[in-house]
């Protein structure tokens, strides 16, 4: 059993919460809905994000037991469960990003801590610090090509790959969970900037923003 003090960052009683893009959407008023849009942009807000750090073997055993998924051992890879809602991504040789549906993260953290016992590791709940954008549509790759230095050609960036890289003038974790969508994990404070950058880059193809 772990002797680390934990606390649930989600307050009881379900008070209203605002996504990092709340003010952006408010100021924008009407969200873009172009006909024949080449790009569809959506924010997946309020997901549970955990950063796992520690040895790959001990963490792998724990996530197999708790989440029923293997830890991606190869650099720049991503594993998803069958529903596609839970994912684990390699960030560095001793660091992984776990994203689960919102509300699950505290229970997951407790169960992982229990599974890991007194091993040398760390789990940090970063749910409030970052948000996820999904980019879909036939021109999504074109928009990314304008924004990031990383090679997003389907040969260089197959499904199941994820990298942290430079995006516009900020940094994002860019990943490809399935054939027709791209995900960007962005910092909360860069969410507005990245959102507006994406809309600007997508202007020539037409964009639809879904909430």
């Amino acid at each position, binding site marked *: 059993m772990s002797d680390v003090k934990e606390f649930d960052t989600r307050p009881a009683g379900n008070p209203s919460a605002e996504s990092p893009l709340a003010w952006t959407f408010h100021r924008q008023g009407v969200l873009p809905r172009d006909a024949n849009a080449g790009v569809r942009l959506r924010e997946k807000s309020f997901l549970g994000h955990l950063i796992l750090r520690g040895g790959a073997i001990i963490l792998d055993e724990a996530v197999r037991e708790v989440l029923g998924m293997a830890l991606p051992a190869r*650099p*720049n890879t991503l594993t998803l469960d069958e529903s596609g809602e839970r994912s684990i991504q390699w960030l560095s*040789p001793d660091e992984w990003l776990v994203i689960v549906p919102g509300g699950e993260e505290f229970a997951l953290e407790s169960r992982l801590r229990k599974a890991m016992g007194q091993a040398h590791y760390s789990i940090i709940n970063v749910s409030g610090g970052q948000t996820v954008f999904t980019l879909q549509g036939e021109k999504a790759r074109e928009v990314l090509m304008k924004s990031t*230095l*990383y090679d997003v050609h389907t040969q260089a960036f197959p499904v199941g790959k994820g*990298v942290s*890289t*430079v995006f516009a003038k900020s*940094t994002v974790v860019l990943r490809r969970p399935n054939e027709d969508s791209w995900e960007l994990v962005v910092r909360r404070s860069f969410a507005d900037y990245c959102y507006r950058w994406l809309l600007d880059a997508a202007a020539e193809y037409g964009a639809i923003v879904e909430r």
Partner: protein
Amino acid sequence: MFHIYCPYCEEHREEEEFHPKGQAHIQRPVDPEACSDEAWGDYLFFRDNPRGIHHELWVHAVGCRKFFNITRHTVSYEILETYKMGEKPSITAADLSEKDKQAGVQAASGGWQTVGARPESEALNKEARA
């Protein structure tokens, strides 16, 4: 722009993702309390500035955020190899081609650091080499 191979990400990444962090393989004096001011000053402030092969510390700041080493040729700027922390370089000054040697290309020897770069420090430099 060019690409640098990150030994942790195991692929080439844009140079923009990296930061140089100066000379690699600098050893901290084993007993800082007992070492001389000069030795401590060398450790803290003085770095090699060789013409030729240089081992450098870099960090993949935007990617995996790991530190690693690069062996770089300071004349051609060519990156000869990159290797993880704790590993030994496979290319060293001893591997310099004969042509480089004749042209007077120097290289940093492991552990030895320049004692001042001014001409009047020459005696000290000789001492340090011996």
